[in-house]
Structure formats: structure tokens, C-alpha cells
């Protein structure tokens, strides 16, 4: 019987592997070490804050973040006043007012990040026909999301000979199909960090992934810390149940 249980267990282990499929013909992005990896992983607050800066100064020109409210930024270590200040730098459309007109006002913590384009058609027409995706879920919406986004941001290369790129097209090692409409978004020293953190494309990319990983899974820290407690409880509970079961069955065996 043990042999069959082993087979069953291997079934359970193999099943999910069968589901994981590499996307397109691009190589799988190299695995990076992330602060939020592993069972005890948490977000690196400093990297998240730097990542937010990179998002605001670079990505936000084309990419929305519409599922994130400014109030959520408190999770990055900002206090209420700082969140208010960040929100205040944005204007959002509100209304209609008593006269029935829409009006603009400074954003409040309860507002969400305004998207850079009014609608998809405007976004496409401003970007050579390509739609810059909203980044709120981008890390969860790609296989091996953190590594993929990092790979994409650092994966711009000269197109191999024989590839013809149309105007507005670029060659990226990790993009499925390799042709991408987004120009290399960031260059060294483009964003000024307030501390000694190196201002390189690699560092910017790591930081923005740290920030976007949080945007995709704001519950990650709570999920993992609760998970540890749940597993410890269930292990202890299973132990007690096994002991009682053994005691009850002692007279039968």
C-alpha cells in the first residue's frame, strides 16, 4: 500500500508542474532574489518607496495603477500626512457639482491613482497602436512575474541581424516574440535617489518590481505571517488528533 501512496503523492507533486507553461518563444527570465520570496518573506519598505518614486517619475507617464488608492501607500511606511501630501500632488476629476458640471480638485487619500490616459483608444493612439497595460496586477498576470518584469526592464538589446524593426519597435530578450513597443523606459541616473542607493537601470528595475509586487499582492505579508501560525496550529492539532486516534484504536490493534 505504501508504494501506491507514494505514487499518489508524486501525482500531486507532478500535476502543477504540468500546468506551468513557458510563455511564447522568449527565454524564461533569470530568477532574482526578492525580499518577499520564501515563507517568511516581507517587502523591503525602502525599496518599495524608491520603486514608487520610479513609478511616479517614469512608468506613470504611460501606465496606470488604477487599483491602488493613495491610502494604501501607508503600507509602504508613510504616515497619514505623507500620504495626504503625495495625494495632493495629483488632480482628479470629480462631480457633478450642484450646477451639474464636472470639476477638478486635488486628490485625497481615498482616491486611486489617476490613469495617464482618458481611455484605451487615447492610450493606443499616443503609443503607436500599443496599449500600455495598467500595472496594478502586472506581477500576478505574468508567469514568474517579478523575474519577468525585471527581465523585461533590463532585457533591451540590439536586434539580431536579419530582424527588421518598424518605427517605434524595440527588441527585448524577454518579451514573448521579442518585439516590444515600449522604448527602453529608464536609463542610469534618470531618477534621483535621496540616499546612497546606486542609480542604475538594474537598481531602478529591482525597486519598481518590489513596489509593483506589493501593488499586485498587498496582502502578501499578512498572508505569509498568518500562514505560519495556521500551519503551526494545524501541525499541533494533527499531533493531538493522532495521539487520540492511537489511544482509541489501541484495543483494536
Amino acid at each position: 500500500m505504501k508504494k501506491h501512496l507514494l505514487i499518489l503523492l508524486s501525482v500531486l507533486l507532478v500535476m502543477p508542474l504540468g500546468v506551468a507553461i513557458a510563455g511564447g518563444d522568449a527565454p524564461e527570465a533569470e530568477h532574482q532574489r526578492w525580499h518577499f520570496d520564501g515563507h517568511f518573506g516581507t517587502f523591503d519598505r525602502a525599496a518599495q518607496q524608491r520603486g514608487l518614486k520610479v513609478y511616479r517619475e517614469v512608468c506613470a507617464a504611460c501606465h496606470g495603477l488604477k487599483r491602488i488608492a493613495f491610502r494604501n501607500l501607508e503600507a509602504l511606511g508613510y504616515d497619514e500626512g505623507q500620504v495626504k501630501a503625495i495625494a495632493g500632488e495629483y488632480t482628479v476629476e470629480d462631480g457633478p457639482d450642484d450646477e451639474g458640471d464636472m470639476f477638478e480638485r486635488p486628490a485625497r487619500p481615498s482616491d486611486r491613482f489617476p490613469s495617464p490616459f482618458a481611455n484605451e483608444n487615447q492610450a493606443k493612439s499616443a503609443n503607436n497602436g500599443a496599449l500600455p497595460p495598467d500595472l496594478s496586477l502586472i506581477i500576478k498576470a505574468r508567469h514568474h512575474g517579478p523575474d519577468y518584469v525585471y527581465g523585461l526592464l533590463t532585457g533591451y538589446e540590439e536586434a539580431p541581424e536579419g530582424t527588421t524593426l518598424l518605427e517605434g519597435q524595440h527588441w527585448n530578450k524577454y518579451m514573448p516574440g521579442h518585439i516590444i513597443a515600449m522604448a527602453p523606459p529608464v536609463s542610469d541616473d534618470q531618477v534621483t535617489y535621496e540616499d546612497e542607493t546606486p542609480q542604475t537601470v538594474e537598481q531602478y528595475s529591482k525597486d519598481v518590481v518590489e513596489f509593483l509586487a506589493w501593488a499586485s499582492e498587498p496582502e502578501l505579508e499578512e498572508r505569509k505571517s498568518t500562514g505560519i501560525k495556521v500551519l503551526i496550529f494545524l501541525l499541533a492539532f494533527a499531533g493531538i488528533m493522532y495521539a487520540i486516534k492511537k489511544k482509541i484504536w489501541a484495543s483494536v490493534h
Partner: protein
Amino acid sequence: MGSSERTVFENPVVEWIDSRLPVFTMMQKEYGVFPTPKNFNYLWNFGAIAMFMLVTMIVTGIVLAMHYTADVTQSFDAVERIMRDVNGGWLLRYMHSNGGSFFFIAVYIHIFRGMYYGSYKQPRELLWILGVVIFILMMATAFIGYVLPWGQMSLWGATVITNLFSAIPLVGDSIVTLLWGGFSVDNPTLTRFFALHYLLPFVIFAVVFLHIWALHVTGSNNPLGLEPKTEKDTLPFHPYYTMKDSFGVVVFLLLYAYVVFFAPNMLGHPDNYIPANSLVTPAHIVPEWYFLPFYAMLRAITFDIGIPFTDIVIISAKLGGVITMFGSLLLWLVLPWLDTHPLRSARFRPLYKKLLILLVLDFIFLGYVGSQAADATLLGIPLSVFGLIATGLYFAYFIVILPWLSKNEKGRELPASIHEAVLAKNKK
């Protein structure tokens, strides 16, 4: 139900109720003293585990429904709102989405147990058939549920699978229009799927009740496949199996909790975090893992079947695939009449045992085939060739091998009784 003898209870309140509606007598009879073979192994836990998962799915599902909106412009956002803004919403939603997978894991093991120990054989045929009906209902419910978050895989999975019905001659197109509530998978499809996804679990619950009722008429099978003969062969269900099942459920919960808390998206597809878009088709449309073997069988038929040397097509490749896929499940319904060997348990049928393990491996391999792109290759050979061979083996197992084994396999000698077998084992 009311005619059988009643137990007398000391507690006056219990006695008052029981003399008017004998629920306590019934519980005492069916779950208290119910004689159960004493030699179950841990594979017998998966019935209770599946029941536990069904209840978990219904409870989490009802709470999720309180926060969900079925509307193509709002469903994706509603799910994200549950994940981000509803208290404990992420936990509920991950419990529900992974709960589907773990329900299927439990049920697949439960079905395997039934096949390995011949639990479907006389007199338990109807019990088995009700089980297959539950499995088919589960597949329908899970498929419909996957559509509700309205991500890319929701939309495109629904489009591919509902389109299958159009292969049915004459009425196919009408059935598809009825399923869609229009001419493509759209808002009417989503709203009716939500209504059905709420309804079907209760239908499953009702069939589970019949399944357990039938079980309590025939009594459980056991690893030896022998009917209990004397009281020595059985134990009262409580406390022996209530305790053993509780332990099994907690161990299963450990695995389930591990995935919910540490790999909640491992079994899902990242494309379902992209809102549904009818203008963009995903590169690979793959169903959830528990459908993959059946999906592979659906895609295995890539050729029309017709009269040779003419252009007359009797069964198109599409219809052939649909017949193959549904046929693979219908075979389970008639399994008690395909395997008529007098011995139940694979323990006493060495050849059957080996071939059943091969069937399981074949089924897993089909799952792998189903997970790959339609034009994938293995060792330089198109994967669809392997898919067709594996599908052929699956059908051969049921249609050729089982009837042949029923006639020709000799089998080993059975012990005299469950009690003696247990004693002999304990001596070792």
C-alpha cells in the same frame, strides 16, 4: 424512516424531540453504532475529506457571493475589491479558488480508491454511479465558477468549452446559443453562469446525500473486498472512524492551508489576472489542471471519420473529440459491468493491480499532454500522436482489458474473514 425502532434517550429534551422526529435515533444508528469494517486504510478518509471540502466551498462561496457582482463591466473589479478591500477577502477568495483544486484532489483519490478496491462491484453499483454523477456535476460547477472572475482565461476557456456543444448534430448550435444567451460569451452568459454556480453545489449536496444513503444500505467496502460476516469484522463508526476521519481531514487541511497561504496562484493561470478582452486571444488557452486529461482526449481526435475513399464525413474531428471526451466519463458509469471479476480488491488481483497503475500513469500523462500547446512536440514527434495513443490506451483499458481480465485472471486466494486477516497481519 419513521418505522424503525427508536433508541430511548435519558436526556428529556433529546427524548422529547426524538419521540416526535427521530433524528437522534437516526444519527445514533447511521453514525454512532453503524457497523464499519475494521480494516480501512487511510485511503478511506477521502470520502470525509471530500465532504469537508464541499462544505468549505459552499460556505466560502456564499460569503464571496455577498461581495461579487455578475456583470462583464464589473466582475473583474469586484473580485479585485474582494482581494484588496473586503476584510479577510483575500483569504476567502484563495480558500475558494484553491478549494476547488483540493476538492478535486480529494475526489480523484476517492475515485482511485474505488477502482483499486473494486468498490463499484455488486451490490454497490448504484452507489458508484451516484458518485460519477457527483463528479460530472463537480466538473460543470468548477468550469462555470472559473468563468466568474471574468479574466482572460475565464472568457476564452468558456468560449472553447461551450463551443464544443456546437459539434452535436442538428441541435448543437441551438444549445450553444442557449448556453450563451446570445451569440457569443457575454453578459447574459456570465449572469446565468453565476446563477448556476450558486445552484449546482446544492444539487451536488443532494446527490451526496443519496450517495451516502446508498452507502449506508450496502455498508462500506474495505481493502480486502470481503463482506463483513460477524461482529468481529466490524467496529462502530463512532468513535473509531469519526476519530480517524478527523485526523485525516486535519492532515489534508495542512496541505490545503500550505497552498492557500504560500502558493495561492500556483494552480491558477496568470492570464486570469488580465481582464477579459474579446479582441485579444491568449497564446495558449488551458483549462484548470483537473480538466487537463479530459481536455487532452478532446484534442486527441484531429481527423474526420468517414467512409474510406470518399469525401463523406460521418463524424467530424470536432464531434469525434467531443464524443471521446464525454465517452471517457460515460465509461465510468458502466464500469461495474465492464469489470465483472468476482474478486473486488486489487490486492488479490496482481495483474489488474499493475494495469490499473498503468491507467493512472496514462491519465497523468494525458494531463501533461493537455497542458501543452496543440502544436507541441515530444522527442521530435508531435505531442498529438502521444495524445492519441494515450487516449487509445485509456479506452482499451475499459473496453478490452477489463472484460478480458474478468474472464481470465485467476487471482489469489482470499482470507477467510476480515477479522482473521487483521489478526494475521498484527502477528507479523
